[in-house]
């Protein structure tokens, strides 16, 4: 049986090394890069060809329906969770959702590469969300943003206990965001490959059961792909709400 971890290997398609003052930075074009580009092109294509005037005047085509429904869902998400004045942060949340969702879905096609199955990619996205939200909090509230660790109305003698707990749970946000996405996608793909291996090794007659299991797991993986993107975006919205309106 083939090694199920082979699908996560990075292959350099076009080696490229940047020399900046004695430090070599490897910026080669890998299969991960190519799939990220394909994802971005698909997202741009979906919205470019899907948003047309007169949506409510006639029966929408498939692309129009998908793009408008998705956009409205995420816009409602941001408006409900962060309030009306957080409309400016809609592109931020929307980019996360579309990138992760489209990337995961493209990774469900056989022989493609899922770029969210690498911890560095998801950690970069989660760290970006964390840093942006912290900076937004400091811009809105100045140094008073630190009141997020000592909620209003909490008695002062509890502070030495409460502040470390709140601090640790605040710092664990990027870790939990990134590991949740990475582990769900990687685990799903590994399980799919293992069951697919069983189909081949059990032959034509006995291989029907693993085949059925693989089909069910593929449906479940598509569901997980969308749900994980939705969870990432809604948690980003909740953290943004925390930062904008202190608790």
């Amino acid at each position, binding site marked *: 049986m083939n090694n199920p971890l082979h699908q996560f290997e990075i292959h350099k398609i076009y080696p490229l090394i940047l020399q900046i003052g004695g430090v070599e930075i490897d910026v080669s074009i890998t299969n991960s890069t190519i799939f990220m580009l394909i994802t971005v092109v698909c997202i741009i294509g979906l919205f470019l060809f899907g948003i047309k005037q007169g949506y409510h005047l006639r029966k929408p085509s498939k692309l129009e329906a998908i793009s408008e429904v998705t956009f409205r869902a995420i816009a409602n998400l941001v408006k409900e969770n962060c309030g009306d004045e957080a409309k400016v942060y809609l592109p931020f949340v929307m980019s996360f959702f579309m990138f992760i969702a489209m990337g995961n879905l493209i990774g469900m096609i056989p022989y493609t590469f899922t770029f969210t199955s690498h911890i560095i990619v998801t950690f970069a996205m989660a760290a970006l969300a964390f840093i942006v939200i912290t900076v937004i909090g400091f811009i809105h509230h100045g140094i008073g943003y630190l009141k997020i660790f000592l909620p209003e109305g909490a008695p002062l003698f509890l502070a030495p206990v409460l502040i470390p707990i709140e601090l640790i749970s605040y710092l664990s946000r990027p870790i*939990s965001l990134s*590991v*949740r996405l990475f*582990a*769900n996608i990687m*685990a799903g793909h590994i399980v799919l490959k293992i069951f697919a291996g069983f189909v081949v090794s059990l032959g034509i007659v006995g291989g029907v059961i693993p085949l059925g299991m693989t089909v069910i797991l593929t449906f479940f993986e598509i569901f997980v792909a969308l*749900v994980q993107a*939705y*969870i990432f975006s809604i948690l980003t919205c909740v953290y943004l709400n925390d930062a904008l309106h202190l608790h």
Partner: protein
Amino acid sequence: MDIEAAKMIGAGLCMIALLGVGIGLGNIFSSFISSVARNPSARDQVFGIGMIGFAVTEAVAIFAMVVAFMILFK
């Protein structure tokens, strides 16, 4: 004891975390079914929050699996 045997035992012990995850998931879906049974028109609103609860709880199970893999393959 063999280091390999100890690794296997460690990875097996990690899976005890799934006890809590199972109970949590059962709670989430049982309350989802109860609330939809009381008020079927609230289904769409409660479904979104139910999915968030499901994914966040499932993440704890996945954390346990990641620790088990780290024990087995490091």
